[in-house]
């Protein structure tokens, strides 16, 4: 076992992790630990853009952006946090440009901007051009640009180091951060990283669902690690299903396609979003569009042999516009469905996409152990965190914004903390829990297979905890997940080796996914209202009297080692916007 010492350890090398690393490396000795290579992260799959009220092409201001974010989040957004994000958005975009990001340009040579779902002029009057973009590869460009600047700054990476535990040391009755434990994929060796501060920037957990836009590797590891250390998770019932996944596959087609003028049609050719959101139509927020699509299919107006999808229509757009502004999604449709968006309708259906919930933090990315107690030295940013700037439904482009604004804040805050504090002694047997996890799986001899359990989990979550939910479906999901957790205790893996053991890796990942599926379903069961991405058919309206509050889920360990999930609530921070009915 090797031991390392860094002021700051960052877990994850996607957009948030690398943005943090650029700041932190300038201020303190920093290591970035990633289970992949830095440029493999799913930030690179983001397509459409990053919103900021630059007003390069039409009048705009960050207060309108703030309002849209809050309304889009169905008023579950912490308004102070949204203000921070939307105000700092402008510098976040300009910083990226100065780092070299090749944005599309206007005729004057400024950063070009386009329309995106839920982003409006003057509190909802009409769609506004706010999304800064680089074709439909904005995430790819952000990821590459951030990695390039990490190279420039000499950021130290530990590639294919899978972090499996957070180390905390009790000081004066308070748990403080003292490091992490990582498993080196190439060798199977366990490494201890002693650190003054730790930033989790480990991404989402979209592989809980079967139809998903998420990478195979998005298994909620960071959220799971924090959870197993008995820190809370916030608003886990709020998960976004992106309207336009390639039907049957879930591969993402950017909302920017509708920003460029694309529209959704049912089997009869009707542009059904005109009925649902008369003002901004196809550019309504994602939760509304996803529900409308599912409703079309349920009411028999779905297209295709099984009437189980709708169409994205770009055929009225000029070929040059499609090929220059939307080249990648055009290729995805051609490659995976054999459909040419220039001349044909593209079959689409909602796909699991983004966790609004996650590790609770304040606006300075400090992780909370309850509604307001900070865990000294622990930070989180990006999809694994819940600030909460996305509330019950994230607006398109605000995730790329989130990782840049809060990634930067995390890098600065964690480095400042490290400069002001000393290393803590590591807890007794720091690697114990990790060794038990790894060796337990490696030596297990049960008959259950990881792939089968994962598939069963994904099927029940798609069936019972997707766009629409009811008490009955969620109870079914909970029963199924509990049974799957029982089966998971009896798995075995075939690869017993030390080197590049991805069989072992996938088993560990599944353990995290099952924990998070359970928290998601339990949180969803108790929220007896419909708000944003959480649509309960048995409680179809928003209930501000009883549920205008964040869910806080806590893991508690009983004496027998059994764990239970306890729910509590946290007030929403409201500054200047009172909840209104959400119409578009």
């Amino acid at each position, binding site marked *: 076992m090797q031991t390392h010492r860094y002021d700051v350890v960052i877990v994850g090398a996607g957009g948030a992790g690398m943005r943090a690393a650029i700041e932190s490396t300038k201020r303190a000795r920093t290591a970035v630990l990633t289970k992949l*290579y830095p*440029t*493999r992260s799913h930030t690179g799959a983001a397509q459409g853009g990053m919103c900021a009220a630059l007003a390069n092409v039409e009048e705009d201001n960050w207060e309108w952006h703030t309002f849209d974010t809050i309304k889009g989040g169905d008023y579950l957004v912490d308004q102070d946090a949204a203000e921070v994000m939307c105000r700092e958005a402008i510098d976040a975009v*300009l910083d990226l440009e100065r780092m070299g990001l090749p944005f599309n340009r206007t005729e004057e*040579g400024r950063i070009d901007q386009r329309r995106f779902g839920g982003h409006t002029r003057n509190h909802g009057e009409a769609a506004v051009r706010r999304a800064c973009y680089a074709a439909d*590869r904005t995430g790819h460009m952000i990821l*590459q640009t951030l990695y390039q600047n990490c190279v420039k700054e000499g950021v130290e990476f530990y590639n294919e180091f899978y972090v499996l535990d957070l180390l905390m040391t009790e000081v004066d009755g308070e748990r403080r951060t003292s490091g992490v434990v990582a498993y080196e994929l190439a060798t199977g060796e366990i490494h201890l990283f002693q650190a003054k501060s730790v930033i989790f920037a480990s991404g989402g957990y979209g592989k809980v669902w079967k139809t998903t836009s998420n*990478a195979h590797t998005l298994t909620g590891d960071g959220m799971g690690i924090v959870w197993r250390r008995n820190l809370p998770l916030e608003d886990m019932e709020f998960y976004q299903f992106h309207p336009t996944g390639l039907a049957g596959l879930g591969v993402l087609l950017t909302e920017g396609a509708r920003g460029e003028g694309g529209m959704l049609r049912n089997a009869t050719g009707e542009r059904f979003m005109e009925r649902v959101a008369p003002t901004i139509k196809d550019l309504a927020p994602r939760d509304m569009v996803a529900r409308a699509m599912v409703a079309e299919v349920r009411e028999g107006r779905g297209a295709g042999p099984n009437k189980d999808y709708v169409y994205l229509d770009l055929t009225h757009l000029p070929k040059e516009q499609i090929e220059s502004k939307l080249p990648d999604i055009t290729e995805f449709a051609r490659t995976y469905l054999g459909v040419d968006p220039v001349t044909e309708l593209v079959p689409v259906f909602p796909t699991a996409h983004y966790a609004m919930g996650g590790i609770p933090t304040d606006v300075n990315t400090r992780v909370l152990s309850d509604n307001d107690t900070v865990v000294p030295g622990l930070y989180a940013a990006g999809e694994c965190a819940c600030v909460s700037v996305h509330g019950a439904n994230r607006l398109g482009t605000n995730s790329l914004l989130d990782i840049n604004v809060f990634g930067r804040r995390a890098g600065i805050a964690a480095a400042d903390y490290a400069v002001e504090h000393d290393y803590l002694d590591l807890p007794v047997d720091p690697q114990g829990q990790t060794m038990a996890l790894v060796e337990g799986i490696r030596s297990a001899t049960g008959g259950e297979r990881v792939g089968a359990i994962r598939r069963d989990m994904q099927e029940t979550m798609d069936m019972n905890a997707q766009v629409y939910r009811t008490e009955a479906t969620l109870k079914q999901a909970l029963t199924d997940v509990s049974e799957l957790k029982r089966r998971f205790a009896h798995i075995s893996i075939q*690869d017993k080796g030390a080197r*590049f053991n991805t069989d072992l890796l996938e088993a560990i990942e599944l353990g995290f996914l099952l924990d998070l599926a359970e928290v998601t379903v339990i949180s969803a069961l108790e929220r007896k209202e419909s708000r944003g991405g959480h649509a309960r058919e048995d409680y179809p309206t928003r209930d501000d009297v009883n549920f205008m509050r964040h869910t806080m889920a806590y893991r508690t360990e009983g004496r027998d080692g059994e764990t239970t999930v306890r729910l509590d609530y946290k007030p929403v921070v409201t500054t200047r916007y009172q909840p209104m009915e959400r119409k578009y």
Partner: protein
Amino acid sequence: MIEAAEVTLNVRRFLPEVDDQPHWEEFKVSAFPTDRVLDALTQIKEQQDGTLTFRRSCGHGICGSDAMRINGRNRLACKTLIKDLDISAAITVEAIKGLPLEKDLVVDMEPFFDAYREVMPFLVPEGHEPTRERLQSAEDRARFDDTTKCILCAASTSSCPVFWTDGQYFGPAAIVAAHRFIFDSRDAAAEERLSILNDREGVWRCRTTFNCTEACPRGIEVTKAIQEVKRALIFRRV
């Protein structure tokens, strides 16, 4: 109704803790024509042999994790559909060449990233930092658009015969990265990058075999980019 068919994959295996030498092993899977080779590999790993080892992440050709040699050609497993391969014979799958083999389809990527990092793959701007964005015309932006698409999958570099035989050659992907900045109107370090690439292990090693252009899953005209760098070196003008 499209039927699943039995497909045979012949995979070049190497388990470093067991095998002295790589060897070929056949697997049969049931696959739909629209399945990806990655789906077939996943099926083998889940249902037949958990020791089969490969990298993958996004599953749709954007993260660059799963470059491998499929039927003798470098491709991404997640972007290669069964229907586009001849399934009357076994589909051969092996690790990309020219990088140290670690296990099955996994190679050591460090030498590849080392070459990338050597060409100064970041913007080096001139003058004071502007308060707003730097201006750039759409034409200037278009000048280097093609080489911004690179996902660092190593398909091009590991398809290059010069790279296979000469362990020191930067390789196509690193030159693509240099090109992306040399031709960016906002950048001021073209001279330095050109000097690096003028080295004996630089662009002059390229023999214009076009393997890289054929291999690139992003459709980058790699050979053209290398030619543009060579021309810039000859005329010292970008």
